[in-house]
């Protein structure tokens, strides 16, 4: 049982759940306290000790069904049907097995004791529990955990049968039949033993295949899950499907939450400042100068102001989407956020975020927020110029300006001097470009013109890169 639980814990781990050794031990202890007859109780007990996140419960439930829905039952079915079909041929399996057992025990056999292998013995005694354990052991010996697709079922089944020593056992049973006959058993019975061995081996083979099939299902499940999780982080923003965008939104939220946690630690560290002697002396004057009440200096929190310029042309819309989501999930980390969107014209969408909740505001902003026309060709020069002309006052020495765009300017005038002026006024200018640096400055990309006037320019093509940048932004 312990082995099975450990294996199950392992399986959960492979599916991306975090299960520690201590938790597996908890599971053992929990099961000690309970009777295992009740499947639901068993499931709940394992869940309480192994799964600690609400999100993982669905995964756990599916895996639980796959793993614990009893391979034993499969085995029993296979052997029951074998027994059934033998009975149709007029062979009473129970009686036959009993007869064999008696003959073996009474030592009626010539040429001394028979030395039957474990497998043959398990088959003859109908000990399915033993058989199940043997199949599991053999399968793991055969490396069944590495099974990856349907085509390998045959291969791994064969190897498992080899590991089980099926050939050997078949030989032993034939041998046994011959000996029994020599020991004075009727022909009919000897023949029956042959049939019985055939049917049982057929059942065994079937069970092993079933086992592989289940194994494949569980492994595949892990694989798919893990793949989905990992992929989301690395996947380029360019090629997200609707469904992935929805999932991504949750991931971004969670990341934002994490950053907030880190921020809160930092804030608290700041609060635990030095003694404020001045105020303390004054406040404790009534106690004859004895410092009964302690007063600490509260340090001012240094929260950046943020101005975001988002290219919302279709080529970079997704980067803008997640950046905006990030920034607005982290609103309290900034003193003030002003958001602008542009394609060629530039317009402010800060108000949109005040009026609507985040996800809706983002969708609206990406459609131009009702202030700009998004169905034109990108013109960074024009956008920067508009910003320089109308909103330069929004930038001061505490402001970080964040530009999101691919700098593909459609051969318009880049007007890099506007960015230079912005750069001179701002604390930082950070440029996030979804293209890789090797493409900067080629074709109609004017990234190289803007590059001198940025504090930091980074490739930002997937979530991992994005979260790293946000990390740097607030910390």
């Amino acid at each position, binding site marked *: 049982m312990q082995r099975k639980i450990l294996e199950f814990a392992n399986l959960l781990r492979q599916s991306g759940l975090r299960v520690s050794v201590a938790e597996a031990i908890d599971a053992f202890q929990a099961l000690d*306290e309970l009777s295992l007859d009740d499947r639901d109780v068993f499931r709940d007990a394992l869940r*309480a000790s192994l*799964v*600690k996140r609400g999100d993982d419960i669905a995964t756990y439930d599916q895996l639980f069904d796959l793993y614990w829905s009893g391979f034993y039952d499969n085995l029993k079915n296979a052997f029951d049907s074998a027994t059934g079909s033998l009975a149709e041929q007029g062979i009473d399996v129970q009686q036959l097995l009993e007869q064999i057992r008696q003959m073996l025990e009474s030592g009626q056999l010539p040429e001394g004791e028979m030395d039957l292998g474990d497998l043959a013995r398990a088959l003859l005694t109908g000990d399915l529990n033993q058989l199940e354990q043997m199949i599991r052991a053999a399968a793991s010996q055969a490396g069944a955990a590495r099974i990856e697709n349907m085509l390998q079922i045959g291969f791994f089944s064969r190897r498992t049968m080899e590991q089980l020593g099926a050939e050997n056992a078949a030989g032993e049973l034939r041998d046994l039949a011959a000996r029994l006959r020599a020991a004075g058993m009727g022909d009919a019975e000897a023949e029956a033993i042959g049939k019985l061995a055939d049917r049982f081996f057929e059942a065994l083979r079937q069970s092993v295949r079933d086992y592989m099939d289940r194994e494949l299902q569980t492994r595949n499940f892990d694989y798919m899950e893990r793949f989905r999780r990992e992929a989301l982080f690395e996947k380029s923003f360019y090629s997200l499907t609707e469904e992935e965008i929805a999932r991504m939104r949750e991931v971004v939220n*969670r990341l934002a939450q994490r950053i907030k946690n880190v921020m809160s*630690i930092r804030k*608290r560290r700041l609060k635990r400042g030095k003694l404020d002697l001045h105020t303390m002396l004054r406040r404790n004057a009534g106690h004859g100068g*004895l410092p009964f009440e*302690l007063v600490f200096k509260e340090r001012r929190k240094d929260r950046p102001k943020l101005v975001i310029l988002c290219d919302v042309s279709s080529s970079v819309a997704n980067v803008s989407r997640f950046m905006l989501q990030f920034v607005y999930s982290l609103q309290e980390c900034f003193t003030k956020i002003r958001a602008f969107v542009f394609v060629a014209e530039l317009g402010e969408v800060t108000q949109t975020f005040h009026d609507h909740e985040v996800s809706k505001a983002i969708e609206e902003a990406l459609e131009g927020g009702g202030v700009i026309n998004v169905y034109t060709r990108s013109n960074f020069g024009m956008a920067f110029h508009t910003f320089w002309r109308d909103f330069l006052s929004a930038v001061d020495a505490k402001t970080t300006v964040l530009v999101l765009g691919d700098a593909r300017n459609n051969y318009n005038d880049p007007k890099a001097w506007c960015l230079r002026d912005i750069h001179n006024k701002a604390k930082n200018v950070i440029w996030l470009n979804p293209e890789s640096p090797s493409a900067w400055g080629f074709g109609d990309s004017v990234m190289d013109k803007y590059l001198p006037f940025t504090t930091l320019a980074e490739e930002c093509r997937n979530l991992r890169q994005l979260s790293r940048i946000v990390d740097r932004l607030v910390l």
Partner: protein
Amino acid sequence: MSSPMESVDAVQKSLEAEGYICDRRIATVVYLAMQLEKPVLVEGPAGVGKTELAKVVARATGRPLIRLQCYEGLDEAKALYEWEYSKQLLYTQILKEKISEVMEGTRTLREAAERVGAQDSVFFSDQFIVPRPLLHAITADEKSALLIDEVDKSDPEFEAFLLEVLSDFQVTVPEIGTFQAKSKPIVFLTSNDAREMSDALKRRCLHLWIDYPSEDVERKILEVKVPGMDRKLAQDLVTLMHKIRSLDLKKTPSISETLDWARALLALNASALEEDLVKETMNVILKYEADIRKAQQELSRMMAKPAAQPGAPAAPADPARKKGTLH
């Protein structure tokens, strides 16, 4: 102990006796927590009875409940113990003369320092400690039930120091030593999942996820908590609640809202759920204007007889969902 909790069923029964209707899952975890003496981390949406569970378990086992409400900025001084600084200072002032007595006859500074050093345990002793809920639960003579409510609201670093309490049931005060629990309390931590708890904390706890109850369970809860309600009305109410929950709302109403609503309807002497009545009282269960509007729009469809519609259509969590006309 007012009732023995010797099996999962017994736990379920004794919780029920205290007016807490739950499924076997909850009972199983509570049972395990008592047997293994491990804390339970209870998570789930707001208002499904997480805090209530701890209270009820305390009542059912006859233990006193010690509650620690977490919030941002909660630190060990408020949760664990605090030195009574002013008292210490006051004592030093009062004992000034005594101190000079102690110091009498010392010639060197070193000697004086040693004498004072020999006395310093006086000022760092139990006498000057103000015990807060955690230390209270640890040092209590009888078994207690400790509820650490909304632990997700606390800071991550607070969690770190909960670890010692939760795994070993002990508290270390550097100046005095370690307080070991005389009897291990049963501990419940509740979380609304505002943030994810650290793995280290989770590892030390059993985990219990309480979700919205099934219709059956919710109806039973309603029967117990709001007696005197018409059966048919209760059934309708619960059915409608489940449909409302399937909408994509900002804040999904939970059991406590169901109960509030039932009480409100009872106070209004309602005998059946009629559309107008529901519309008027909807603000009892929904707390956002936008939610109320949405639910009201969907209402006539939801209140149609079940035969007319194949199953409650769950609102898909599709980002591109059009906010279209709903009739």
